[in-house]
């Protein structure tokens, strides 16, 4: 077991965090997907540098939260934060890292003028839905709708 008692630092994402994110995702989903994460990291690095956050322990990435601040989509003219992907290394869960990442990304969104933060969740994914509820997400008048084609 890794030493999970050491201090964990929350800091903005950079391009050298890619391997860490790929590894955490692989631990969670079992899929090794470097191409996908290279695209996502590049996207957030250019879209809203400084917004996305990672948690680092002993120089190793143990958690990440990716998102950006947007305006002008779905008729929402005011800037709002969007959280897209996040994950905590299973060895480091239950230590408030998810919440600390969320606080850091929200601080950035606020500095950009956002007054709300949004995300989409698969209601069947009880752990993620539970986490989002615990950090304060509630029902929105906007709903994600879907129709099969």
């Amino acid at each position: 077991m890794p030493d999970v008692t050491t201090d964990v630092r929350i800091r903005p994402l950079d391009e050298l965090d890619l391997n860490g994110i790929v590894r955490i995702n692989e631990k969670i989903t079992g899929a090794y997907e470097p191409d996908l994460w290279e695209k996502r990291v590049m996207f957030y690095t250019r879209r809203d540098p400084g917004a996305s956050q990672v948690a680092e322990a002993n120089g190793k990435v143990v958690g990440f939260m990716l998102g950006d601040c947007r305006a002008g989509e779905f008729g929402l003219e005011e800037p709002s934060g969007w959280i897209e992907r996040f994950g905590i290394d299973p060895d480091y869960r239950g230590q408030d890292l998810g919440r600390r990442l969320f606080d850091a990304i929200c601080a950035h969104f606020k500095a950009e003028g956002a007054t709300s933060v949004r995300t989409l969740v698969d209601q069947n994914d009880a752990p993620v839905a539970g986490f989002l509820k615990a950090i304060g997400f509630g029902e929105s008048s906007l709903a994600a709708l879907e129709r099969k084609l």
Partner: protein
Amino acid sequence: MALKVENVELPKKYHDAVEHWHRHNFKDYDLLLKYWDKYFPKDDQFCLCAKMELGTTDVIQIGEQKGEKKRLKPEEMTPEQSGHLLAIIKAQASTEFGSIQQHAATVDRAPEDEDKFWTMRVMAEELRHGYQMLHLLLSEDWSSVSGGVTGEQMVEEILSMTTGSHVLDAFNLDYDSYTDNVVFAACIDRVGKYQLTMQKVCAYKPMADSMPPMLREEAFHLAAGVIPMRRWAQKAAKGDVFVTMRMMQHALNKWVPRGLEMFGDERGGDTNVNFGFKDMKNDEASSLYHEELRKMIRDINTRYIRARFPDYTPEKTEQVLDELERSRGTHHGLAWTDLLRLPDKRFFRRKGVHAFQMVGIDGEPFTDVEDWLRYLAANLNDGYIASRDMKLYAEALRSVVSGEKTPAEAIKSMPRLKRVGGTCPCSKGVRWVMEDADGGQTTVAVR
């Protein structure tokens, strides 16, 4: 989305001069803007303007005047301070424009359109960073510390520099292939990140306020270097004959020493800290930089090993990498030297404490100058070893080894290209100038 930033445009004649400059030095600028939405959908449009961060501290954070109010005008600083800062701003401006000229030479050789557009965005943002520095030169009067040179003349000088005449060596080297575009972004823009980060504290507030917007753009530049390198590593591992680790290693060998030298002599940096312009001295910053490169290279090597041994878990990959780094041996046909290696801090240096030492990539010492030059020739790309830069390096090194010159004299004798005159790069000549040890100059060649 932008944080709280004020966009400022230069007076028209200077804005037009920068527009004119990019028509000569960055011919695909309009192409980039035309296809911006295709390659960077929904990103803010590119703005050729200076961006000043709002809401930053107005208290000096470091140095002898810590706690005092930040300076808003050159005359609020001592002449030594403003003269020193002026040199920093001019050097920074020179590097920004310089890198565009370097990128422009080989950007068209990018293997994929996406690569090319990433590089072009980097170039456009460097143009903006240069513009930002021109704003700092023009928005206040520096003539009391510039030896009477006006803002207009300083801008003219900067815009007329070409590869070879820039203030820092890394911006005087031609690119030999598109590999240089990418490795330069990964290694030299990383120095830029360090410089900008250190200058966020700058006691001259307009300089400090210029840094955060530049740094946010720099994040993309680093990714535009590292991500193609990662993809190339994967291709190399899968046996792509046109993409090799060796080609990336040769580019690292070319750029990492120049990157280390951009921090200045390892023994210096006190003045910047005392004056409140930067929050780290040269040695500390360059050591952190070198360690960050180690991380970058390990990441790329990890990507390579996973592609070469797809069944390996992340843990197994880490183990193999640790073992190869320790043993410098082989693992199932994969040699340590097949991976990327971080050049030793002393490797191929021509400035600073390690100038003209003969130390290999992995720290191995050389005693015979000809053996050393043969080793360098085998570890740099062919286009580069056939260059004037290498010829002059070899001459300077031989003179140090023979005792004819001290390293300090040899450093000074490396020629620099200086501008002769004219405002437009299409209408002016430049010449090689050899600076004598006593500061005198001898013209070597005209082109």
